[in-house]
């Protein structure tokens, strides 16, 4: 279902500077290299991810919209915690990030 992290060609945003303090984290089964201080959302956009999740209502594709924590379009699962705003979390070495399923039909319990 998720668009995989592609090569840089189809990327909506490019880095103006090369990564000088690399931080590696996992998005599904892909290793993503972020720069120290990048939010998960910024790192995924820079890595070429165009679609972050599907809306639970119609299944329409969604991606970060406001980048300051208001729109909740960038929701991902981080370290097993569902529905986390990717724009508000800094990338940490080894972090496990997954796509949220969250559709009404496949609703699952978010245990904590």
């Amino acid at each position, binding site marked *: 279902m998720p*668009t995989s992290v592609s090569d840089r060609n*189809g990327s*909506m*945003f*490019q*880095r*103006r*500077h090369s990564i*000088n*303090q690399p931080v590696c984290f996992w998005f599904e089964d892909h290793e993503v290299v972020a*720069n120290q*201080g*990048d*939010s998960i959302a*910024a*790192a995924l*956009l*820079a890595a070429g991810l*165009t*679609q*972050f999740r599907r*809306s639970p*209502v*119609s299944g*329409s*594709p*969604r*991606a*970060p*919209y*406001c*980048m*300051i*924590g*208001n*729109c*909740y*379009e960038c*929701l991902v699962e981080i370290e097993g*915690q569902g*529905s986390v705003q990717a*724009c*508000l979390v*800094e990338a940490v070495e080894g972090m496990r990030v997954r796509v949220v399923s969250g559709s009404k039909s496949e609703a699952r319990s*978010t245990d*904590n």
Partner: protein
Amino acid sequence: MIEHSADCQVAIVGAGPAGLAAACVLADKGVDVVVLDEQAIPGGQVFRAVEKVSTARSEDMGILGTGFSAGLQLVERFRASGAVYRPGVAVWEITSAHEPELSIGLAEKGVAQMLYPRHIILATGAMERPTPFPGWTLPGVMTVGAAQTLLKSSGLVPDSSVVLAGTGPLLYLYASQLLRAGVTPQAILDTRPPVSWHTHALALGALTACPGAMIQGLRWMHEIKKHTAVIANITSLKAYGKDQLRSVSYQATGQVCDLTAEVLLVHDGVIPNTWLSMSAGIEHHFDPVQQCWVPDVRGVGMTSRDSISIVGDTAGIAGAEVALLQGERVAREVLGQLDSPQPAKLLSTKEPLALRRRRRLRYFLDRYFPPTTQFQLPPDDNTIVCRCEEVTAGEIRQVAARGCMGPNQGKAFTRCGMGPCMGRKCAATVSQLMAEVRGMPVAEIGHYRIRPPIRPITVGQLADMPIRRESNDLAEAGASIYDTLAPGKNSTS
């Protein structure tokens, strides 16, 4: 994680210009002040990542301009001030005025905690006005502010096929920053309606009051128009694509045109971020000029709750310079209140000259960049208004026509505003649409009732929260209920 005390004299929510300036003044006077920030580093959105840019990406300072680099001094002053800085903190509640004690519910790294300040200063800033149009939920459509955040925080830019649309100072500021970064946008689709000679005349007043800012703005406009196609009088905007944006269609002076684009950045000015102030039960009103809800503020930052002040763009859009000046003034007002907590007195109502000059600039900007009608009242009924629940403008018009009283009742019929964003991206539009259909002023139609928690928090986090044993009977009763219903970590594991 550092163990933080549950008590402080003043808690400030937000680390933008207003919050930081207030914190500096209070800390200088020896007040025990805590700044709660959702971000990882101070600066808010306007000075976002300014320390990092200055050290790790210093050439970007020139691209972002003087309005940005001015923030470095403030952030450095704040770092040296002695104020307690708590980054990465989500504030999900300010307890209501009926509670025995003023408190803030916060969560840091998944751990919830209550903070008990004597006074709270809300400096939660602004957010971009929603801009609904057909296709605005497609990946590739973002706000101008979002793209600027990516530039500040991570040095990211789109390529030259990017299209900008809408209106407002931020759109032109960002376009000028892109040009300096070597990216020439494909087109700027300007939705600003033609303005009257009277508004142009106001420009003279603004020019005398703030010549620096006005000349800088004119220079941006000149640079942008020299390098990129600025298409005026855009009356319709649509985004197309299957899984992501492929093309943008627009209408200008009757003609429909298409552009191939993967990134469309839209902006229509900013409005106060009032989710925390509204959830705290503070009185608000609708500002007919800025077309947004603002807290009732009297004197210097005082609200309908004596122990809560509001400052910066949350108190009404006025910009970073005003936020900084007002932050210092509010801090002095709060100092006075801490000394004598009796009836909030109006100390210094007369604003200093620098502030009055900025107000004249804002008076002009508010009228030169009015909100775009086609975004406020989407003409196409199929336009999604509520992005989370995918409720359209047509559905809102329909329930309003059938007698729905307002946005709160509308939730029951449509689920509009009940998704994860809690109405942040649809509240403004829903109130406007209902007011239009019912032929009533927006002020009477009202706004969603905002209730805590205003940030997501799990029941587990709530249950694990430490309880203040030494406090009064009410809290004791509450504690015993928590213990029975939801045993904390100690008892389960």
